[in-house]
C-alpha cells in the first residue's frame, strides 16, 4: 500500500466555547486507506471530521492536506431535509456549483449523473424525488453526490446511523467495492460489530486518540474500556472480533 499522506493531523485540539472536544489528536490518512473512527457520543468524532473539512476551527495544532486534494463529504442522512423539493439528479448536480453560471442540467452532466448512479446500482432513480427512496437508496444518493466530484478521499459521518440491517450490509459492501477500486475512505461510526470490525484500520477516539490499528489490535477490552468508559468483552466470531456490551440492565420481574 502507498504511504502517500493525504491528511495529516498533528496535535490537533478543538473546543466548543471553553470545553475541549479534541485534545492533542494525531492521525494520518494515507492514499488508499479505509479508516474508521470510533468512540462514544461526544468523543469528538464529528468535530474531527469538521476540522478536516475546514468547517470547525482548530484551536491548537495543525491539519495539513495534500495540495489540491478533492474531498467528497457525505453527512449523516438524518440531517437531510427529505421534504426539500429536489430530485436525485438535482441533488447530485448541485455539487457542480462552482465555475458555472448555467442553471440547467446539461446533457453531459445528465450522462455523468447516470454513470455515477449506475456505478452505485441505482441508475433508475435519477428523476425521483429524494423522499420517494428507500433508506439504502437515500444513502447511495448522497454517496453518489460525493462521488460526482471525483474525490481523492471520501469522508462519511455515521454512514450506517439509523439504517436497518439490510441497508447497513448494502452500504458496507458498496464502500468495500469503492475501496477495492482504489478510493481512500475516512468515516465515523458508532457501530462496532456491524461496521467497524469489518474495516482494515480503526482509530479509537475519546477527545484524544486511544488506539490506532487493525480491528484485532484495537478492539480489545482494555482499549474499549479506555475509549467508552465501560467494561466490554470481546469474543471471536467467524474469525472477527465481536464486542459484547456488559451494560445489561436487570428488568423488573426478571429471574423470578
Amino acid at each position, binding site marked *: 500500500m502507498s504511504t502517500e499522506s493525504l491528511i495529516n493531523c498533528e496535535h490537533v485540539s478543538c473546543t466548543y466555547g471553553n470545553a475541549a472536544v479534541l485534545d492533542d489528536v494525531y492521525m494520518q490518512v494515507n492514499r488508499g486507506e479505509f479508516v474508521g473512527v470510533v468512540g462514544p457520543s461526544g468523543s469528538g468524532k464529528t468535530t474531527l471530521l469538521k476540522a478536516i473539512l475546514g468547517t470547525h476551527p482548530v484551536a491548537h495544532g495543525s491539519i495539513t492536506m495534500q495540495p489540491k486534494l478533492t474531498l467528497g463529504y457525505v453527512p449523516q442522512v438524518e440531517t437531510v431535509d427529505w421534504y426539500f*423539493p*429536489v430530485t436525485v439528479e*438535482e441533488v447530485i448536480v*448541485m455539487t457542480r456549483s462552482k465555475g458555472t453560471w448555467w*442553471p440547467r442540467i446539461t446533457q453531459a452532466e445528465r450522462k455523468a449523473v447516470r454513470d455515477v448512479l449506475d456505478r452505485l446500482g441505482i441508475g433508475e432513480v435519477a428523476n425521483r424525488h429524494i423522499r420517494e427512496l428507500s433508506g439504502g437508496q437515500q444513502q447511495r444518493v448522497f454517496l453518489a453526490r460525493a462521488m460526482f466530484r471525483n474525490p481523492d478521499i471520501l469522508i462519511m459521518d455515521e454512514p450506517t446511523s439509523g439504517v436497518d440491517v439490510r441497508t447497513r450490509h448494502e452500504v458496507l459492501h458498496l464502500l468495500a467495492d469503492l475501496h477495492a477500486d482504489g478510493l481512500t475512505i475516512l468515516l465515523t461510526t458508532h457501530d462496532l460489530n456491524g461496521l467497524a470490525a469489518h474495516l482494515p484500520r480503526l482509530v479509537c477516539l475519546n477527545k484524544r486518540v486511544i488506539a490506532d490499528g487493525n480491528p484485532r489490535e484495537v478492539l480489545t477490552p482494555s482499549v474499549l474500556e479506555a475509549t467508552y468508559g465501560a467494561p466490554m468483552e470481546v469474543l471471536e466470531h467467524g474469525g472477527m472480533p465481536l464486542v459484547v456490551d456488559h451494560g445489561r440492565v436487570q428488568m423488573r420481574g426478571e429471574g423470578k
Partner: protein
Amino acid sequence: MILAFDLFEPYGFQFFQHGIIVATIAGALCGLLGVFVVLRGMSYIGHGLSHAVFGGAAASAVIGINFFIGAGIWGIISGVLIARVARRRVLGADAAIGVVTTASFALGLALMNRYGQASKSIEAVLFGSVLGVKVADIVAVSLVAVFALAVIVVWYRKLLFSTFDPDVAQVSGVNVSVVEVVLLSLLSLTILVTMRVIGTLLISALLVIPAAAARMTTNSFSKLLWISPLIGAVTCFVGMNLSYHLDTSASATIILLDALVFIVVYTVAGTRNRMKMASLGHV
C-alpha cells in the same frame, strides 16, 4: 354587478396605473425570493426586515437623504447584522431578528413621533398606499426585480446548494456566508421597493404565502421558482383591482386573496394526497 366598463374604470387614474404596475412586479419579486425564505425556514425574517427598513425610512426622512438610499443601506446592514448574530448558536435566528429589527422599528417610531408628521406618514408606511406611488417607484421595483432574477439565474446552483445543504455546500467550495448576505440584501431591497404599496406590516405575508402555496403544488425546485412568482403577481394584480371596486385597503385585499389561494391549494393538495393514500390502500 360590475360591468365591463366599470372593470376598466380605475385604469383611468394615473395613481392606479402606477400602483398596479408596482404591485404586480412586487408580487412576482416577493414570490421569487419567497421560495428561499420558505425553504430556508426564514419566514420571520421578512417580517423582521420590513420592520428594520421602517427604521431606515424614518431616519432618512429626518436626516433628509433619499428614501431608497437611506432605508436601503439600513435594511442591508440589518440583514447582515441578523446573519452575524444568528450565527452565534447560543442565540439563534429568531432572537437575532427580534433584537435587531424591533430596535430598528422602535427607533423609526420614535424619530417619526419626534420629527415627522407622525400619524399620517406612519400609517402610509405601515399599511401601504397606492396614492403615493410614482414613476421612480416603478423604476426602482423593476431594477430590483431584474437584478434579483439575474442573481438567481447566475447563482442558481449555489443558492440551491446552500439552501438545501449549507455544510456540504461550504465544503464543496460555495461561500455560504456570501450567498446568505446577498440573499438578505436582495430581501432588504425587495422590501424597500415594495413597502410603499404593501406596507411594512403585510409585506412578510407576500414573501411567504405565494411560496408556501406553490410548495404544495410541486416537488421541483425549478418549477417553484416560476409558480410562486406567478401566484404573487396574479394575486397582486387581481387584489389591486378588487380593492378599488370593494373600496378596501390594497395591501389587505392582496394578502387576503393570497390567503384564499393558500387555503384552496392546501385543501386540494390535502384531498389529492388522501386519494393517493386511499388508492394505495386498495392495492
